[in-house]
């Protein structure tokens, strides 16, 4: 049906639908001959997709939008016909910072407003005593992790650009950096939070689902021009990924899925850690405390796989809020057009109408998100870097 496809990915649990699609034969069943290429950086994935060395890629949703807008880099329009996951990140902090936040907290420890306000008090006390500002690691400038960290701390009154340091760290370096004190906390996807807890160097403070009920995380990205020329291939890819996502979401298949994903040339960590992630059952403290959430990582359930342009609009709004992009209606339209529910529906013969799609961000602070009035929406937030 088609020539061999090269698809890039970063070894993270939210590449699950893509990896299982290839390694459990869902791609082959669609007549696709796919070679997965494991990459070491998002910059590589983006560049290789942009110049055509990859036909498709597991990509940070904000990178797909930034690339389509030409932010910070080459402008290459990207289409996302399939959402590889909702949520899935967590904020992990060092034992010392955890203790400091818990000493200041007024409220439930999983309430992000309570922890953000406590963080603000910790930050103020450090400034008063002349201590170095706290350093937070995240994965990429155009990443959900960056925006989720910023959204959370700013809600408590911490200015992410003035009061703390935010630094980019490649995910495989996160745990070591926390252990060595290079960072005090980080926001990253699975499996790295669990690995920090297992190694006894960090505690999971929040699942990002505490901060946002639904947050588009990684997408299956293709170049728009390639997608226009190869609609059948795109449809076959969407079907394969969708079948894989359905497979993963069946609890009785989790063990097998975790084994597939744990292979050294795929994610390369213990199957047990991967399964905990898929089940949303995470050890959050080295003392063995467990926390369960049905919203930790959504691979396909609750309509997670269908791209939702409102999610793209929210991500674009964060770029505007933090000075990565100037606001324009055209840019908003472009950003929203990256997410392609039409391609998803065409591939799956979905009867779901756009109006039925969840379209909900569910942030813990601020007014409900309004894609049609981003300027008005952002005006409600005190801290920001609008340009």
């Amino acid at each position, binding site marked *: 049906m088609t020539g061999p496809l090269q698809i890039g990915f970063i070894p993270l649990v939210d590449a699950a639908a893509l990896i299982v699609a290839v390694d459990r034969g869902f791609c082959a069943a669609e007549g696709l001959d796919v070679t997965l290429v494991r990459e070491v950086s998002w910059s590589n994935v983006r560049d290789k997709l942009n110049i055509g060395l990859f036909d498709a890629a597991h990509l940070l949703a904000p990178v797909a939008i930034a690339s389509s807008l030409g932010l910070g880099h080459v402008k290459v329009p990207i289409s996302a016909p399939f959402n590889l996951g909702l949520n899935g990140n967590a904020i992990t902090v060092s034992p010392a910072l955890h203790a400091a936040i818990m000493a200041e907290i007024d409220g439930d420890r999983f309430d992000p407003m309570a922890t953000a306000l406590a963080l603000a008090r910790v930050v103020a006390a450090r400034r008063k005593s002349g201590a170095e500002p706290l350093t937070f690691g995240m994965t990429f*400038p155009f990443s959900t992790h960056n925006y989720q960290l910023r959204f959370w701390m700013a809600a408590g009154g911490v200015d992410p650009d003035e009061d703390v340091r935010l630094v980019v*760290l490649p995910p495989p370096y996160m745990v070591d950096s926390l252990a060595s004190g290079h960072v005090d906390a980080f926001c990253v996807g699975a499996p790295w939070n669990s690995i920090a807890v297992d190694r006894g160097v960090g505690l999971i403070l929040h699942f990002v689902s505490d901060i946002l009920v639904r947050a588009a995380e990684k997408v299956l990205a293709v170049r728009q021009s390639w997608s226009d020329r190869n609609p059948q291939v795109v449809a076959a890819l969407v079907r394969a990924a969708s079948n894989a996502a359905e497979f993963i979401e069946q609890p009785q298949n989790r063990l097998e899925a975790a084994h597939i994903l744990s292979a050294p040339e795929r994610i390369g960590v213990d199957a047990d850690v991967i399964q905990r992630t898929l089940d949303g059952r995470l050890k959050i403290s080295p003392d063995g405390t467990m926390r369960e959430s049905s919203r930790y990582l959504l691979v396909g359930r609750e309509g997670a796989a269908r791209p939702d342009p409102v999610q793209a609009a929210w991500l674009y709004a964060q770029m505007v809020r933090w000075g990565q992009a100037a606001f324009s209606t055209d840019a908003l339209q472009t950003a929203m057009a990256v997410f392609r529910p039409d391609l998803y529906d065409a591939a799956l013969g979905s009867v779901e109408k756009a109006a039925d799609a969840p379209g909900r961000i569910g942030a813990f602070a601020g007014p409900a998100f309004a894609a049609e009035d981003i300027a008005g929406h952002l005006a409600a937030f005190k801290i920001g870097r609008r340009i």
Partner: protein
Amino acid sequence: MGESSPKIVIVDESPIRAAILEEGLREAGFTGVVHISEMQSLLARIYALDPDVILIDLENPSRDVLEQMFQVSRAVRRPIAMFVDQSDAASIQASVDAGVSAYIVDGLKKERIKPILDLCISRFNAFAKLQDELERTKSALEDRKVIDRAKGILMKLKGLTEDEAYVLLRSTAMREKKKIGEIAQSILTASELLK
């Protein structure tokens, strides 16, 4: 910016490749070359050095750290990615193929970066070739060991001299259109099975 030699930073965890690159750049008259091999506090070191050009190998996860430079406008001059100029697709392709990426501080003229990049691409390719040859030498050495052991087995089982054993291996390989190493390996496997 003056016409003096631009300051170049090489970010590479492979000391040999970095040395090859550095030497090439110096020979070409680029004297201000600094090599960073330590990835902790990478950004702080780069800000301190304030280079015009940053070269980093594509297998280095710290490439994403460099992308943060686009976000920071204070304290440093704003760097841009090599790929920003879309007109030069061939050179982008060549550099990705070679496995090197460049970040250029805004203001450095395109004609000045071209020779630096071309040189890096050719040195990266030369290094890859070197590694390739090393791999091949290694596998040739492996073959040699396998052939010696197969000769030993033939000498013992068939009462041949070493030369005769080798001739038998070679003629069998020619008849079966296989490599001598492959025939030797199958003799080893067979003798293991028949033990």
